[in-house]
């Protein structure tokens, strides 16, 4: 086992991953593997694969869970703090500054015109991501009908405004734990694809 890397090197690696990643799908996965496993040799392929599988079970941003899990493996508590902070803090700062600047021009006629085109793109991104999350359903054979029913029900309930969003999520979680537990989770890309 080699000595843990310096905080600086670790921060640099996760800063790169955070800056270059988008979508959190297989391209991000490939990049983390290339940097941490192949180039730096800080974690083994097996550790990497396991962290990926576990991170898919985490709440919120999976990439943060991935940074925490791999950071802990690489350098313990220091590794967690350095990895997560390097990935999140600079990116968050830039995001907040962009928002502040945007606030100054938000009511300009040209901005409003541009937003008329950006709105449909933001909506399309959200719909596209929803379809990406639903895509594993296609491989489920005859069980697909149950999965599609959960998706359609959640969609209809939210649009109808007849229940709170949080209730839909909790009910679906309980439903999944009781009825869908005989199969593997499908929220992730296959680690090695």
């Amino acid at each position, binding site marked *: 086992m080699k000595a843990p890397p310096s905080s600086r090197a670790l921060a640099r690696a996760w800063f790169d991953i955070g800056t270059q990643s988008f979508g*959190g799908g297989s391209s991000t996965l490939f990049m983390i593997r290339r940097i941490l496993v192949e180039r730096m040799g800080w974690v083994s392929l097996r550790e990497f694969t396991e962290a990926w599988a576990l991170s898919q079970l985490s709440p919120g941003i999976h990439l943060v869970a991935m940074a925490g899990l791999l950071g802990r493996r690489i350098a313990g508590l220091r590794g967690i703090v350095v990895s997560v902070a390097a990935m999140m803090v600079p990116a968050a700062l830039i995001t907040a500054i962009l928002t502040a600047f945007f606030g100054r021009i938000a009511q300009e006629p040209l901005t409003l015109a541009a937003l008329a085109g950006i709105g449909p793109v933001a909506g399309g991104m959200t719909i596209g991501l929803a379809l990406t999350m639903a895509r594993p359903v296609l491989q489920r054979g005859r069980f697909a009908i149950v999965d599609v029913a959960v998706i359609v029900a959640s969609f209809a309930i939210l649009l109808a405004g007849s229940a709170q*969003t949080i209730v839909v999520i909790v009910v679906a979680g309980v439903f999944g*734990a009781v009825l869908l537990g005989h*199969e593997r989770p499908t*929220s992730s890309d296959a680690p090695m694809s």
Partner: protein
Amino acid sequence: MLEQIALLLVFLKASALAVGGLASLPLLRADLVPRFVTDAGIVQALAIGRLGPGPNGLYIVSLGYLVAGWTGALYALVGATLAPLAILPATALARRWLLSSWFGGLVRGVSLATAGLLLATGATIVNAGGTQVWQLGLVVATVAVTLQGRLHPAVMIVVGGIVGLALGR
């Protein structure tokens, strides 16, 4: 003070109950629109989150800023950072439990519901932004690009802005 804590809890809750970065959107929209921010604000946050660096889910920081300035951005960052780290004690204390089939089923149920909720939220955003033919064309193009997954999403934001400047006045 109480209001500040409530706001932090809104961001923490949305991150803790979502599987995936953008999955927090339906929950945040339910809590924040229209009291603290409009659907136009949601569009801004999504666009800036995509133009800026970092994972998909960082749109939450932009939304936090729109809701309560720098304090809001900080709360959003804290919520988005702390929630996923729950996996750390969970793997140390209950690894076996995490890999059990019922937990897998729970995550799957939540993911499927989130897909449905995100579909509805996307439709709402499209509807709020306008449904002229060229706008619906942009929606279809963006969905296709997102599903394909090769092109950086920021490119579509820029394309949308340019098309908007040409046709949206």
